[in-house]
């Protein structure tokens, strides 16, 4: 995973709550078996509407999405994160993220920064009044800067550290393989196994 320390890019105000993962990427795009190439799928239903924010310049070149509360609810599809990244987004700001989406973002180097709703409202106004305003998201200091607005954001310490270092989760866990093997030796015999298969 690439390291993430600080990013500056055009902010995109998405004045909407409950942006579920079916909106971020409709199910029809989940039939692909690749991990990249989802830029066309991002918000594909909404992008058919010419007034949608990503159809307007300069927002279409945005890389920091500023959304309403409960972003990324619904399906666990990591494709939602891949689509945001493939489009060019590096960070999403919201006052509340769905747990699975937030987890998926952390694994893929997309920064999900939790910002107080009052600050989100201020940033929205700034981005709407001055389209093309750049937003800086600094993971070291956990702050967002947009025009004159400076707002703190929350992210859990472990995800922050992994993003800053660009660390691969599986590699980290496999350092503890001896612990895993030791645990396996203590599992009760009655726990089920899928193999050999038994059927009705």
């Amino acid at each position: 995973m690439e390291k993430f320390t600080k990013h500056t890019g055009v902010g995109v105000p998405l004045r909407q709550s409950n942006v579920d993962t079916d909106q971020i990427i409709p199910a029809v795009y989940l039939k692909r078996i690749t991990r990249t190439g989802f830029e066309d799928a991002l918000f594909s239903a909404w992008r058919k509407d010419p007034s949608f924010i990503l159809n307007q310049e300069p927002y279409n070149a945005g890389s920091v999405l500023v959304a309403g509360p409960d972003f990324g609810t619904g399906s666990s599809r990591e494709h939602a994160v891949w689509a945001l990244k493939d489009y060019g987004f590096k960070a999403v700001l919201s006052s509340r993220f769905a747990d699975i989406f937030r987890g998926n973002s952390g694994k893929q180097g997309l920064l999900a920064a939790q910002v107080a709703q009052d600050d989100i409202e201020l940033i929205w106004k700034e981005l709407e009044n001055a389209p093309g305003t750049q937003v800086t998201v600094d993971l070291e200091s956990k702050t967002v800067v947009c025009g004159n607005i400076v707002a703190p954001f929350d992210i859990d310490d472990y995800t922050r550290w992994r993003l800053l270092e660009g660390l691969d989760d599986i590699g980290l866990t496999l350092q503890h393989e001896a612990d895993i093997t030791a645990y396996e030796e203590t599992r009760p015999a009655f726990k089920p196994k899928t193999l050999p298969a038994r059927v009705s």
Partner: protein
Amino acid sequence: MAKTLAEKVWDAHVVRKGDGDGANAQPDLLYIDLHLVHEVTSPQAFEGLRLAGRKLRRPDLTIATEDHNTPTLDIDKPIADLTSRTQIQTLRNNCAEFGVRLHSLGDAEQGIVHVVGPQLGLTQPGMTVVCGDSHTSTHGAFGALAMGIGTSEVEHVMATQTLSLKPFKTMAINVEGTLRPGVTAKDIILAVIAKIGTGGGQGYVLEYRGSAIRALSMEARMTICNMSIEAGARAGMVAPDQTTYEYMKGRPHAPEGADWDAAVEYWNTLRTDDDATFDVQVDLDANTLEPFVTWGTNPGQGVSLSEAVPNPSDFGDENAKAAAERALQYMGLEAGTPMKEIRVDTVFLGSCTNSRIEDLRAAADIIRGREKDPKVRMLVVPGSARVRLEAEAEGLDRVFKDFGAEWRFAGCSMCLGMNPDQLEPGERCASTSNRNFEGRQGKGGRTHLVSPVVAAATAVRGTLSSPSDLEPAPEPVVEPVETPSASHAA
């Protein structure tokens, strides 16, 4: 120290305690007892293993099935949609390469992954269960800690059989009282979500408790736990009890003999201690609950079926007001319209929420002897091939077909429309599934989430209806049996 059910299951699976607080503190590493796999969220994970030269650590704790993409008609023919066919074929190739047990289309154990696990007895109390699917919370009905994960985590579990998990908070959902006739588990969970909101459970594991929950069957408990994710929760759980054990006993992978006794002894410890505390308590009165239905485009936007479409101005919060306005526009509804006056085009009975044999029986009981509204199309999609066979053995398929419904093969189907079962733009559907998001069941489709009995009553009347709205069904015509004993009895 006194613990909740969720904390007990968590503690029993800690492979390595986290480092506590600090800048790079690692969270607890938990062992995963069962990994369920399907075609949509696994191909990139298998590919990741291959690229890194890693093995699948525990094929014997992994099981796969085909569900999201599979057609529900002509399952003996090659899948017409080429990308769907490729994705299914990729799962078959990956399972063969990595030694994973797979139940393919046409196999009696194929079906929706969250129907298949419990049906085979693989889901058991006190386990940790994960799947690259948010509705993995279903398995919490057994007192398992069951969570949906993304593809990166799927790969992590494949490689290590563990997950690093952030600690959660605990929320008790206390449902006391007795449900009235026609009110079901689906109405309980829709009411819970409307009460706490789609983000209300965020960061929590929910434990459903109280007399109304204890009185529910296992399949009804699965319906409730299934939609925990719709309240934003990590997981939902019900403590195991005699109902759980009776459901499990004799299932193919349930423990046997001495193992069964040892398991039950352990399972009996899996309840929240009397002096344990929850971070949050939420109460719901089962006695006054009515059938529940959604009017908007997220599962928290619901009301009792006897109420009307709300007015956006009723919402104090600006974001909720804007969301309601947008939802009404998308749904083509006007504030103040009684829910029961809303006409539907399609009724969908299926999905991991409501496609088990009890759901089919409950719907069949409503429609038996009644006629379908001729303008309504009804799709019945059993959750698994096994459920379909069971329903056919009971004659339920005849009841649905005589009514004019389409009797299909098993899969996720119209819940998310990855296969050809989709709504047309503007089409309105009463659906027993779990999500009423914009376009979820097909581009431009409009979804009202309902219980199986409301779905059935709606198919009869053509408008959103509860079973109590129906005229009594005509008495079944019984041919007189001409035997001496019959005449004596008369």
